[in-house]
């Protein structure tokens, strides 16, 4: 592409800046639903900034290469815009429309500028399309990445939320498990339980699986591993909260929970734990 046609885009952006901005905003207003999540004022600010940065970038650098250094600032700006829209709940296409809706006004002004020169018009329009497509795709990419970050963070938070180890009594810990037990979670559960056993010097840990929806062979194996590891450290484990269906499943699967003390409810397990630590009389004695 020649230097002459390269210069057309920055020239158009500069010469018709105000008109482009107005028409672009009108385009966006028609593209978005009424009662949009973003204010007119904010949108105008973003659009103005985008236009001036685009002008600067196209003037300085290669038009086709949006990964280049001259596009650094406009990439940052688009990144911020799509990230904030992602958090506001915009869909990816709504986010990308921010860039794509510039096409119609930009093309019409390029046409006005070049007039009858059909060859240049085709070339410039093509490079402008390419540029805006790339920028639009970039916003989609960032949008998706920011949503993925949100999901990852929520997963992390869920993981931390769902594995609290609580102290029930002197020397008795309880671990109410909630949700499906996969390998990654079991590892964290096991580590936090064993760590707490060391910290508190607890003799008994009650693992309550009332909140575990299903137990398959893998889950049962994970449970047994946790119980064995606790035993190796010198603490006894009681598994409680086994629902009738789960008891049936465990037996049908042929899982051997033989060596493990199991109780139907957390209350039963707690009573048993008090007996085992010799505290039952002290705790359950009515107050004088």
């Amino acid at each position, binding site marked *: 592409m020649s230097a002459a046609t390269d210069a057309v885009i920055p020239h158009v952006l500069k010469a018709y800046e105000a008109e482009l901005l107005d028409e672009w905003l009108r385009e966006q207003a028609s593209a978005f639903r009424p009662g949009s999540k973003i204010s007119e004022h904010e949108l105008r600010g973003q659009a103005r900034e985008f236009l001036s940065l685009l002008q600067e970038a196209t003037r300085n650098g290669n038009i086709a290469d949006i990964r280049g250094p001259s596009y650094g600032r406009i990439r940052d700006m688009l990144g911020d815009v799509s990230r904030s829209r992602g958090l506001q709940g915009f869909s990816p296409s709504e986010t990308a429309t921010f860039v794509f809706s510039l096409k119609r006004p930009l093309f019409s002004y390029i046409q006005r500028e070049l007039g009858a020169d059909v060859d240049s018009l085709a070339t410039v329009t093509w490079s402008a399309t390419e540029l805006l497509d790339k920028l639009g795709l970039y916003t989609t990419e960032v949008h998706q990445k920011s949503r993925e970050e949100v999901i990852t963070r929520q997963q992390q938070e869920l993981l931390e939320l769902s594995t609290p180890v609580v102290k029930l009594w002197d020397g008795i810990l309880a671990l109410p498990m909630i949700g499906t037990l996969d390998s990654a979670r079991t590892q964290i559960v096991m580590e936090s339980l064993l760590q707490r056993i060391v910290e508190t010097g607890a003799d008994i840990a009650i693992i309550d699986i009332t909140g575990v929806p299903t137990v398959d062979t893998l889950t049962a194996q994970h449970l047994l591993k946790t119980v064995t590891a606790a035993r190796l450290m*010198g603490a006894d484990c009681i598994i409680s909260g086994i629902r009738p269906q789960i008891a049936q499943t465990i037996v049908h699967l042929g899982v051997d929970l033989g060596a493990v003390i199991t109780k139907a409810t957390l209350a039963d397990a707690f009573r048993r734990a008090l007996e085992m630590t010799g505290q039952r009389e002290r705790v359950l004695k009515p107050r004088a």
Partner: protein
Amino acid sequence: MDRIPILKLRDLLLVTIQVDMHDRLALQLQDELTTRISETAARGVLIDISSLDIVDSFIGRMIANIAAMARVLDAETVVVGMQPAVAITLVELGLHLPGVRTALNVDKGMALLESSTRAVEDLPDADARHPD
């Protein structure tokens, strides 16, 4: 060269592993401990592994073996103070140490040993049962 000290405490033997356990050391400990048990006629053995951070399958098996040998020589064995990471590793290696008694720390291990050896002491003496 490193040596793992074996302390005699009344009728118990106390082994505290304070250094990195390597294979030769484990074999040496196995030798010395069995010798000391038969020499002193110890009723119980307490193995403290609270400063042991790393185990492999060999050391895991050695711990189980030493405990089993002590039991054969009629000494109750309690392994105390296993670190969480060590416990997880042993479980993942499939070493469940069946038959090895465990406790959280030396204090609790002592209590466990005392209660089990006292049960034996409470029995009337052989002489008392057969006065003639």
